């Protein structure tokens, strides 16, 4: 047992003396959360729009007023002609324009039908889509307020509710994603590098000649990164709750336990990588290409897995981060318990068992 403690102490020296890496390891989750939280966001706010109002009546004024009042739009300017509209778009001053035809209110009241045109700059299709949707819903609101009292025959009324995330915050989506990314990177890459480094330096031979049991070498190698990962989880969760207002609706204990499980899976993967790579560079490359990229691509955090071709969807099931991402979203954002995430948890646990068995077998006790 004492041997083991000496070993762990040595691992901590390595970790703590490498200031630069340590700084990256602790700094990475914090910067990622802050960047995703405040800089990279899909939300569209304060977009500049222009109004071409050919009617200038009460109805258009009311709609314009409501558009202006919403946080999504900044009314940039009123323009007077189609030609001006074109040039404003070309100068990139606006992302959308709202065009009211002549006699807007009149046709609305007399014919019960009026047209309004939304023109969006679709060089960024997602933004264009979002903006027209916002504008449409504002106009619908206005329409409804008009019809108050006046019965309109046969009208379907859609009412939307955004469950779990009524404000449509992007942070609800990326916090679980960043957690998966950081834990995978710290766990797998750092463990594999720390083992391969000893192979490269030749110290692994000396350790293997000594009486220490190989299993203890493995565990001692993992413990510092396990602790580091738990610290990272704490900093991510604290930042999410206090800086980004992302709630933890489910049980914190369950959430931390799931993180622990995922971290162990990452460590086991790191061990596996270390036994197949001969140098630190190779270990790093395998970790980045083989783990980090799939984590980003297939966890569903950047790109929805449901939209991928079937073979890729099947492949995505092999990525531990996908299951972890589901679990964290469920527990943290939806507030569900083990009752809903037991299957994902079992899958992760199964992956852990398989990976550990394979990698411990592959860990070369005798260096051939």
């Amino acid at each position: 047992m004492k041997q083991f403690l000496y070993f762990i102490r040595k691992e901590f020296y390595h970790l703590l003396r490498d200031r630069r890496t340590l700084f990256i390891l602790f700094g990475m989750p914090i910067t990622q959360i802050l960047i995703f939280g405040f800089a990279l966001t899909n939300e569209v706010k304060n977009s500049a729009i222009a109004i071409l109002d050919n009617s200038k009546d009460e109805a258009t004024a009311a709609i314009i007023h409501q558009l202006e009042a919403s946080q999504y739009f900044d009314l940039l300017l009123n323009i007077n002609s189609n030609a001006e509209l074109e040039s404003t778009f070309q100068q990139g001053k606006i992302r959308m324009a709202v065009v009211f035809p002549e006699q807007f209110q009149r046709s609305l009241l007399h014919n019960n039908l009026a047209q309004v045109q939304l023109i969006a700059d679709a060089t960024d299709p997602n933004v264009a889509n979002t903006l027209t949707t916002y504008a449409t819903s504002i106009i619908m609101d206005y329409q409804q307020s008009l019809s108050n009292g006046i019965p309109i025959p046969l009208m379907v009324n859609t009412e939307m509710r955004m469950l779990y995330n009524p404000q449509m915050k992007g942070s609800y989506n990326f916090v679980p994603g960043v957690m998966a990314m950081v834990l995978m990177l710290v766990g797998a890459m750092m463990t594999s590098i720390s083992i391969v480094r000893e192979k490269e330096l030749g110290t692994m031979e000396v350790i293997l000649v000594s009486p220490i049991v190989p299993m203890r070498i493995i565990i001692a190698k993992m413990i510092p990164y396990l602790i580091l990962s738990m610290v990272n989880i704490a900093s991510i969760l604290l930042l999410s709750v206090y800086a980004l207002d992302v709630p933890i609706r489910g049980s914190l204990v369950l959430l931390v336990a799931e993180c622990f499980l995922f971290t162990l899976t990452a460590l086991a993967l790191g061990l596996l990588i270390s036994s197949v790579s001969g140098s630190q560079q190779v270990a790093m490359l395998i970790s980045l290409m083989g783990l980090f990229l799939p984590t980003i691509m297939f966890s569903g955090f950047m790109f929805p897995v449901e939209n991928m071709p079937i073979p890729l969807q099947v492949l995505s099931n092999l990525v531990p981060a996908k299951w972890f991402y589901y679990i964290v979203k469920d527990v943290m954002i939806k507030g569900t318990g083990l009752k809903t995430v037991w299957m994902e948890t079992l899958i992760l646990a199964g992956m852990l068992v398989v990976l550990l068995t394979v990698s411990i077998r592959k860990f070369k006790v005798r260096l051939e």
Partner: protein
Amino acid sequence: MSSQPSISVSKLTKRFGDFTAVDEITFDVHQGEIFGFLGANGAGKTTAMRMLCGLSLPTSGTATVAGFDLSSEPEQIKKSIGYMSQKFSLYEDLTIRENSRFYGGIYGLKDQQILQRTQEMLDHLKLESQADTLVKSLPLGWKQKLSFAVALMHDPKIVFLDEPTGGVDPVTRREFWTMIYAAADRGTTVFVTTHYMDEAEYCDRVSIMVDGKVQALDTPSALSKQFGTKGMTEVFIQLARKATRSDN
């Protein structure tokens, strides 16, 4: 010298696929002896040594190391041997004291023993003032002496040295050999591989491996006489020239 050999090797063989790296080697090493294990690159000496240290499993043949059987009692062997690898084996980002505490620790020494032996080592190598500096800032010669001292810290019966003086200046090599003699005088068996023939002359007995086989084994002076040469260099060249196998 005791009657029981410190290392006894009988028909030890290692094959990698079709390639026979070590071909039925047989020899004994006595206790307290400095045994030079020579051979050109690729002759199989590193593989043989790794088998004796438990880093590699023999394909066939038997051996006892420190009185324990290689295949059935590897754990006892591990406790009785020290090993210094070809590559530098201390941690550069740890201080001298931390390195010796780690290696003492994984060999199961008690804290008290570790403190005492570290102190002895520092006194002996006159490194007291450097005890808390990181190993990476020490000159190579010191590092090599230090790793030898660390390999001896748990007082092993046998110490295996794999080309311990590679890249070290002649003065330091001489000092290193003084340490080897001192260890042998205390009864430790020293099993050393080297490419320096002047070092071969320092050994009690020398074996020369060619193409996986031990082609010569005797004291350096007897070997010189046998081959009719002035020194080990020519003995080695005569034997190594017969090799059919190229570098590994």
